């Protein structure tokens, strides 16, 4: 099951048949510049020391690996551990990547950054890092998400970012990403594009993975310290797939079962879901070849999930590869199951998970239930659920004051 000498992507940014650089020619020079700059900082100790410093003292790393005793007892199966990315600054794993990329942008002499955001978590994390390091920041967000995630919009504005509401297409993450890329094409000479997931053209899937792999590296050290061995199973949610890759990557060569959980929305058969790996076909979206939710005419279709962060019809190319070779199992959890998991974690552990992460909790709990009590399951709790309280209330038929 485990891989040996895993060294992808190749020089052209491919994970097997997936990845590459499918962007307008105008951006190719910027991608070349980025590849070169990234290769440099990877080897640069002062950059790595700076990154580590801010991750520790600013973002609050390492985040705990927490034995969820009450939840485990309730479930009555394996020991469940939660990797507490919800405790990182800004409330999700997104900050790991944005601090890294904004530091990189600064090294490259860029004065402005642009980013797309779905739920607003990556937008907030980008605006936060941009504020901290003094860069101008523009965030594109689908008009539908602006409506759903009002609080995060205001957070970004408080952090000094310009938030642009995108009214084209389905008005969600995919369209925000189109618009962010168009903005980047137009301002490519002085602007750095902070991509928030492990999708997009090479080298982004690699850069984002590398900045997120701290999640898995910490988890490995923590579980060894607490249990003296590696876990049997790790579960993470997959939208574009950044928290999952960050968690899985350091375990690809280990004998650990890895499960990625997509959003099944109203059910895989309903057609209203965001389960790109489960139900998509190979295609090209936003600069990379990967699985894509599309119709038989090659048009991208709208995804659906209760969680705005998973509501995306594409997925990172490395996940596509890991699915094909069978190293990671990908499955999907419905809106309803995620909501149940949200409530369960709140009641048993006093933790409100992000609805994204609640998908991982739902599957993690289901799988842990079937395992013996000496087994160890790690669930990546990629973000906290404060941002979702309005959504959850609405779904549960509760009206909150405006």
């Amino acid at each position: 099951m485990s891989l040996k000498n895993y060294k992808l992507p190749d020089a052209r940014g491919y994970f097997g048949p997936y990845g590459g650089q499918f962007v307008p020619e105008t951006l190719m020079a910027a991608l070349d510049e980025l590849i070169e700059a990234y290769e440099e900082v990877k080897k640069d100790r002062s950059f790595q020391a700076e990154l580590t410093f801010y991750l520790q003292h600013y973002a609050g790393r390492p985040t705990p690996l927490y034995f969820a005793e009450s939840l485990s007892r309730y479930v009555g199966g394996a020991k469940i551990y939660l990797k507490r990315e919800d405790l990182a600054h800004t409330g999700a794993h997104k900050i790991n990547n944005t601090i890294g990329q904004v530091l990189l942008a600064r090294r490259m002499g860029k004065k402005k950054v642009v980013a797309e955001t779905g739920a607003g978590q990556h937008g907030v994390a980008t605006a936060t890092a941009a504020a901290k390091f003094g860069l101008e920041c523009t965030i594109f967000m689908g008009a539908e998400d602006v409506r759903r995630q009002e609080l995060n919009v205001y957070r970004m504005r408080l952090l000094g970012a310009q938030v642009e509401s995108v009214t084209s297409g389905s008005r969600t993450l995919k369209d925000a990403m189109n618009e962010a890329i168009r903005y980047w094409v137009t301002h490519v000479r002085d602007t750095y594009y902070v991509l928030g997931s492990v999708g997009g053209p090479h080298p982004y899937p690699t850069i984002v993975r590398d900045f997120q792999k701290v999640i898995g590296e910490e988890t490995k050290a923590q579980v060894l310290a607490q249990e003296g061995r590696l876990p049997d199973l790790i579960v993470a949610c997959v939208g574009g797939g950044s928290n999952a890759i960050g968690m899985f990557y350091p375990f690809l060569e280990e004998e650990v079962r890895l499960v990625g959980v997509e959003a099944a929305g109203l059910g895989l058969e309903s057609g209203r879901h965001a389960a790109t790996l489960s139900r998509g076909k190979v295609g090209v979206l936003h600069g990379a070849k990967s699985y894509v939710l599309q119709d038989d005419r090659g048009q991208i279709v709208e995804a659906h999930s209760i969680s705005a962060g998973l509501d995306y019809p594409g997925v990172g190319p490395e996940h596509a590869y890991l699915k094909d070779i069978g190293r990671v199992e990908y499955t999907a959890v419905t809106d309803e199951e995620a909501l149940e998991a949200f409530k369960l974690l709140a009641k048993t552990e006093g933790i409100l998970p992000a609805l994204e992460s609640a998908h991982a909790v739902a599957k993690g709990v289901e799988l842990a239930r079937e395992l013996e009590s000496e087994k160890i399951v790690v669930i990546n709790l990629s973000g906290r659920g404060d941002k979702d309280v309005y959504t959850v209330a609405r779904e549960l038929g509760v009206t909150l004051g405006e």
Partner: protein
Amino acid sequence: MSRIGQVFAEKRSRGEKALIAYTMGGDPNLTLSLEIIKTLAASGADLIEVGLPFSDPLADGPVIQRAGQRALAAGSGPEEVLALIAAARQELSLPLVIMSYLNPILQIGIDEFLRRAAVAGADGLIIPDLPAEEGEEIRAAAAGYGLDLIPLVAPTTGQKRLERIVGHASGFIYCVSVTGVTGARDSLPAEVKSLLQKVKKLTELPVCLGFGIGKPEQIAYIKDYCDGVIVGSALVEIIEDYTKGEIKKDKMLELIAKKVQTLKSVL
């Protein structure tokens, strides 16, 4: 010689420049789209680019984005655009080029799409999200069907890339005038001239300029530096006015013809 090569050779021998007109296949609907293509040809376009609508057109500004949405809503797609090309080819002898993002082509299958494009009577393809690095397979396959894969070069393209791209090219070179997306603009950046000069130095192939061009003054400004200009959004805007009910169909076709004639007169 290919149809594209022939047109430019004729233009050159007469000391003229080519006018390339873009229209979205199926905008505002499939029937009118064919009439628009015929109008473009009849009023003097030397080559026509037919857009294949895509839900997520990264390289396009709002005008062409909306044209794509209208075309999709009218039932256009890969099959329909191929049929449109075939219908246009029945009556027109000028070169027809398909402009499509990669994904719809992949769903039909590269080889199958190219074969059918050639059968329909297309002369080439422009794929705005397919840089040279990713395009080798398609370029080779296209050549096998006698289709040119027309490359784009941008103001940000460095000298080395430029040499590589131009070295593999066929048909013509599509120079992007601005760092930006498609859409008519008031003026062109001064650096456009140096980009065109740089490209001309590297190739005998025709070099054409597109993105942001819709005015006679702009064309007058750069026509000595290139072999042709590509006009898209400025024409599509007229179709948009029709879809908004601001003008009738005959007026739309008349305005399109006038626009082509006006721009052509400068070339």
